[in-house]
């Protein structure tokens, strides 16, 4: 699974995700990527999120919407909300990660696996790429 979230100079945010799913998946199986609010979400009131991992868990927890709800109704920061939802998914036995961005441009990523292919760039010149969890 691959994905991107962005905040543009007009202040808008967007999310996109694309995947082949799971190796050996049953013909017809659909994961979280195409389920808006699970693996992909963009809502200017809260955040944009793109997820990767065991899609069934991200659907059952409505993961992207859960992060947005924690921000909107619980007042949590994006990073705190993203980490909390990944921890819940881990406790359920699921694994994966998310990338996210807030309307103010704050980026976040959170994953409960040893690694995640990831990168981020900002107008201030920040440009980071990572693979392993300890980077």
């Amino acid at each position, binding site marked *: *699974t*691959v*994905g*991107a979230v*962005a*905040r*543009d*100079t*007009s202040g*808008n*945010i*967007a*999310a*996109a*995700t*694309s*995947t*082949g*799913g*799971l*190796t*050996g*998946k*049953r*013909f017809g199986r*659909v*994961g979280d*990527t*195409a389920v*808006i609010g699970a*693996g*992909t979400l*963009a*809502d*200017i009131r809260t955040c*944009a999120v*793109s997820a*990767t*991992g*065991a899609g*069934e868990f991200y659907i059952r927890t409505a993961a992207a919407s859960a992060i947005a709800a924690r921000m909107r109704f619980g007042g949590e920061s994006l990073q705190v909300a993203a980490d909390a939802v990944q921890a819940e998914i881990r406790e359920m036995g699921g*694994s*994966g990660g*998310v990338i*996210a*961005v807030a309307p103010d*441009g704050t*980026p976040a990523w959170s994953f409960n*696996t*040893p*690694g*995640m*292919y*990831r*990168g*981020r*760039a900002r*107008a201030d010149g920040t440009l980071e790429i990572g*693979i*392993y969890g300890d980077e």
Partner: protein
Amino acid sequence: MTDWTLVIHGGSGAMSRDTISAEQDGVQRQALSRALQAGKAVLASSGSAVDAVEAAVAVLEDDPGFNAGHGAVFNAAGSIELDAAIMDGRTLEAGAVCGTTRTRNPVRLARAVMERSPHVLLQGSGADEFSRDSGLDQVENSYFETDERRMQLERMRERAAGSGDVFDIDVKFG
């Protein structure tokens, strides 16, 4: 306001310095960098967040090293079914497709659903037909195949044969 932000991912999993060679590490980082550059080019010229995420994801779909587009994993039947979604935060417009098999860049098909249909989610042969009607780049399903993913499917089938359940979620890896 000149501030912009772009974040990308190429999937999560059991990556470790023991399982990824230094060469593969470099190849993957270069691909991630290309995706960042594609999205950055849009944002730095005051383009839209929707254009930026589509551009970045399309680069990763075209790269054989990630599970999307060219390089996607095989299903148990030995074919490739692709899912994608895109969403605009300001309008809450969204487009998504699942089980598509012929569109080179599924993220572009998701965007076509968002912008040229009254729907949010199209699936299977209906999504493939909408892609043709929308004039998107069509490919054979074999375009998405790679030897690496075919070997993963074979290894999974061998392991599943041992577990007796071809759909045992525990023997799968994305």
